[in-house]
């Protein structure tokens, strides 16, 4: 299970990183979303992976670390809010700039608009 989990997290963050480095805002937002999924998975696993364990200390063995679960909940909420904000910002940028490049301009007309 560990290796499957690690591979999933790794693939998600690799895809997220690749998309974040793209030049248009939509792939960047999708990339950030994937990156935050990868981070949430990673956080969830940081106390070690357990199955069939209750999230309370219930005797000396067989319990899941409750702290990562609380943390991942916080991280999910924050990540979700951030994604919503990034989407709105990307739409505003598209509307105000007239294109969806992260630099706010197309490359061919770069020379004229550059200050």
């Amino acid at each position: 299970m560990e290796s499957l989990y690690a591979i999933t997290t790794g693939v998600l963050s690799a895809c997220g990183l690749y998309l974040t480095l793209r030049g248009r805002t939509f792939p960047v937002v999708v990339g950030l979303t994937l990156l935050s999924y990868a981070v949430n998975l990673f956080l969830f696993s940081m106390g070690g992976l357990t199955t069939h364990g209750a999230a309370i200390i219930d005797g000396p063995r067989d319990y899941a670390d409750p702290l990562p679960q609380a943390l991942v909940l916080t991280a999910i909420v924050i990540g979700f809010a951030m994604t919503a904000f990034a989407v709105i910002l990307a739409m505003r940028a598209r509307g105000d700039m007239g294109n969806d490049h992260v630099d706010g301009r197309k490359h061919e007309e770069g020379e004229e608009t550059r200050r």
Partner: protein
Amino acid sequence: MTQHLIILPVVLPLLTGLLLLTSRVGGTRLKRLAGVGSTLALVIVAALLLARAAGGEVAYYALGDWQPPFGIVMVLDRLSALLVLVTAVLALGCVIFACAGDDEKGSNFHGLFQLQLMGINGAFLTGDLFNLFVFFEVLLLASYALLLHGGGKARIQAAVHYVVLNLAGSALFLIAVGTLYGATGTLNMADMAVRLAELPEERAGLVTAGALMLLVVFGLKAAVLPLYFWLPRAYAAAPAPVAALFAIMTKVGIYAILRVYSLVFGEQAGPLADLDQPWIWWLSLATLAVATLGVLASRDLRLMVAYLVLVSVGTLLVGVGMGTVAATSALLYYLVHTTLVTGGLFLLAEMIGQQRGKAGTRIVKGKPLLQGGPLALCFLGGAIAVAGLPPLSGAIGKALLLDAATPAQQPWLWPLLLASGLGAMIALSRAGSTLFWRSHAGERVGEPLPREQWAGTGLLLAAAPLLVALAGPISDYTRAAAEQLAEPDAIVRALLSDAGETP
């Protein structure tokens, strides 16, 4: 009541912010009153906290009375008290300035401003790595919205870069925190320091990776060399009171570096101690050099001030990189000076731009200004302070820093720091003479500037002479704060002594 004082810098702006965001009925006047009143109360609270911390006691506030290392704690020591006070004073100047009309150019300025203050204060006071992340997010979310306040192409474009970079930074922060938790089993910084002392050898690599990832995140916030490219544009595009408040944001990153690497990765961590030092020393010197070039190359007054913020980041981090008590003390003195003065300069640049009308803050010939005399006088004072010339506070800060360098560090630090001062002086005198003297003949232009703007800018720029007049007590305090920071055992003992079980 007094034991609840520590949480007040977080709760007070939160309540005011919520109130201001929910009440749509209140008029502008009421909102301004609430914003200024709350910030003024924050200054008083911060001064009380400073008076309490000055004795050297490390106090903590356990939320819900869950004792550390299990509960969430806010920790008050000399360093955090000093930074909360600086934040409050800076915010007071900004919010008074904003009352002149900047707050009405968009919606919810005062509410967002208070939430931003909550995030900054929380980041300074927290004693827990994960809460540091949460407060970073609070201050970032508020700053995204504030950066866009008033709208406009330049702001949106700067905001896209700023938001995307910081979201990626937050992801890295979480990975780093997760790695450190996985390796040490705790998130409380004091507890982590204790556990690092008895870390099994096979986990040292994991902790090193986590610690260096944290350094990248803090470096992004502090705007160190390879990670600073977002800063000049964002700061130059932001509305003036927001840009002035952002002067403290880079210091949040510097504070986090100071706190984490002195408390968690201090002496007791053995082979992991001070693993940030070589990185920070060289990167900060490079930041200093590049930022000085930026100052010389700026064609716009606001961009120039943004690069001056970068110069100050380089100067402060050099102090962190030196790693001695004397250097830390000097950098804390310089931090107070540079935060207030660069904040004041952002406000002053906006005032000059407003009076010039169409020419704005671009450094080109314009018409003579109606209030050119007083504006030029303020500019002269700010320029002397920020370039580090005597008799104002920048000179003392730089002298302390130069004095703290060991003979091995001097050949690198002295020429660079002095050259950056010279560069700033050249650029600022060129800007000042173009703005105020090389003007076209003709009528004086511009509307008289509102009183609020003079008051806000005056408050921040007055810090420069005040810091000189009070240099003795302030440098005594920063020295004591640096000594306290060098002795992390005191914090660890204060936090973990009355915990239920010894870790």
